[in-house]
């Protein structure tokens, strides 16, 4: 078939194509509706999470009021419930975890984003991403059988010999404790700090770095005086995100914290966290008030993580916007 011959030949009769096109128009409305329903379902599920926690905890909320948050009695037999020991345990372990994880996490993020040669950075990033995927219960397993004995024999005795006079390191150490839980938590949240901080650092525009390097600043000077200040809001966001993770972390903490509802100044004493008490007592809770009190603990946890996550998002979005991304 020569090209001149086919030029006048129409590939398809036009009328036929058009009528089909018209019929397909209805499809768009349908597709829109289906995806809208899915998106709506997400909204409804999230709203239900809050509503259920709120309504199912009404018994405890009405009985104890705000005092629930400040009372340190947890007596299921007498029907007296206060959240303070759990809030204390949760906060102490999370803060301890942050103290360890923030410097190490941000250090790693700086190395990966700024200092390391690309190949090394890629491999390390990959490994740290895998670390983030390790399930909580595996951390718990290692916590009980590996970390706790190490702490008991190799870490706590020297710590006590140096800082033994401080209230933080008083009393006997039985392995399971706030201290152990904090260590396990720190290991668990480092990957989150690294991956979010790394991305925030990478979103700092290249021209900022080049301007600094062109003035004769070293890699580190550029990183520390130009890149990190640019990214500081986002890095703070990553810390909040990690804190929210730590507060809600359940299994690993449950396995090493000792599960004792008490408030002791010493890190070496066993404690309890909000998530751990829910995990341990929820299926065994007898009586509506007991269950309701546990659900109110869930509500407290939800509220805390809600606020932290919201703040973290805002901080991270602000940096990536001002970073000109």
């Amino acid at each position, binding site marked *: 078939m020569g090209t001149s011959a086919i*030029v*006048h030949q129409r*590939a*398809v009769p*036009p009328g036929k194509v058009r009528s089909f*096109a018209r019929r*397909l128009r209805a499809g768009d409305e349908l597709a829109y509706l289906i995806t809208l329903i899915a998106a709506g379902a997400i909204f409804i599920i999230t709203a239900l999470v809050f509503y259920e926690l709120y309504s199912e905890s009404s018994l405890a909320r009405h009985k104890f009021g705000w005092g629930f948050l400040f009372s340190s009695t947890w007596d299921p037999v007498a029907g007296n419930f206060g959240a303070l020991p759990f809030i204390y345990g949760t906060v102490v372990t999370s803060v301890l975890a942050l103290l360890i994880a923030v410097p190490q996490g941000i250090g790693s993020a700086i190395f990966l984003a700024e200092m390391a040669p690309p190949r090394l950075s890629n491999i390390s990033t990959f490994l740290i991403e895998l670390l983030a995927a390790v399930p909580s219960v595996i951390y718990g397993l290692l916590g009980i059988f590996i970390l706790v004995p190490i702490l008991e024999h190799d870490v706590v005795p020297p710590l006590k010999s140096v800082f033994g006079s401080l209230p933080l390191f008083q009393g006997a150490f039985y392995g399971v404790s706030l201290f152990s839980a904090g260590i396990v938590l720190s290991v668990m949240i480092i990957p989150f700090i690294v991956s979010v901080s790394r991305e925030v650092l990478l979103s700092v525009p290249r021209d900022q770095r080049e301007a600094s390097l062109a003035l004769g600043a070293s890699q580190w000077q550029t990183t520390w005086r130009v890149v990190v200040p640019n990214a500081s809001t986002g890095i703070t966001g990553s810390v909040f995100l990690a804190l929210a993770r730590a507060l809600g972390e359940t299994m690993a903490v449950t396995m090493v914290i000792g599960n004792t509802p008490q408030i002791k100044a010493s890190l070496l004493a066993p404690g309890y966290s909000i998530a751990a008490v829910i995990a341990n007592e929820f299926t065994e809770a007898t009586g509506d008030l007991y269950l309701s009190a546990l659900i109110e603990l869930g509500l407290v946890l939800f509220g805390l993580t809600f606020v932290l996550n919201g703040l973290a998002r805002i901080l991270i979005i602000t940096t990536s916007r001002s970073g000109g991304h």
Partner: protein
Amino acid sequence: MATPQQQQSLKEPVLLSQEGNEVQKTYAAPKLCTTDLNFFYGSFQALRTISINIASNKITAFIGPSGCGKSTFLRTMNRMNEALRNTRVEGQVLLDGQDLLSMDVNDVRRRVGMVFQKSNPFPKTIFDNVAYGLRVNGIYKNSVIEEAVETSLQHAALWMEVKDKLNKPASALSGGQQQRLCIARALAVNPEVLLLDEPCSALDPIATLKIEELLFRIKDIATIVIVTHNMQQAARVADYTGFFLMGELIEFDDTRKIFQNPGKKETEDYVTGRFG
């Protein structure tokens, strides 16, 4: 050599010029016709009262500096701009005398095909790329599709190069071949008008020449409208040329007149390179 007297806003049928020295005094209905067309991106007015008649089975080119609205104008004629948020169109666009803006949008795009600045083959085989438009328009019969694919690839002067590798991915083709594939893909649904938005801007001179050659051949089956930043290209391929500046159609006339004896100072400045 006589040139038909044309105004930039032609309300009456366009007078067609012919090869040779004679002007045949036949009036043909314009294929596309816009009246007082305005277009807004948010509050920015990108097109200002564009009125034009585009002749059937001719090649019409639009030239002008970047951001002058020529691409926007092109994209109004198959309503691709509707996909963008916060845009508004005013005025009238007629396709064969029918109101294009109130027609079924998919129907409009089937009838008014488009080739983009950067070739955009789908991540599919060469065959499936060309067949795509037929399939989404409800044609599934293999014999029809196969014939249309071959015909379209012939039109796009690509058949000889790809007939043995129709099942290879389109990404394996060179840049110029990919752009011709996109033209073949557009032709397969048998469009009445083919809009080309700077189709050669990313191509080398040889690939550009091939596309210009094929445009001459396909103007028998479709009305062609091409936007180009390359004035030589407009001068080579177009029967009519329009000059856009700051969202306005400054002048629209026979290509030779635009380049040899423009009626407006701005046009002259631009085509002689004195612009800006």
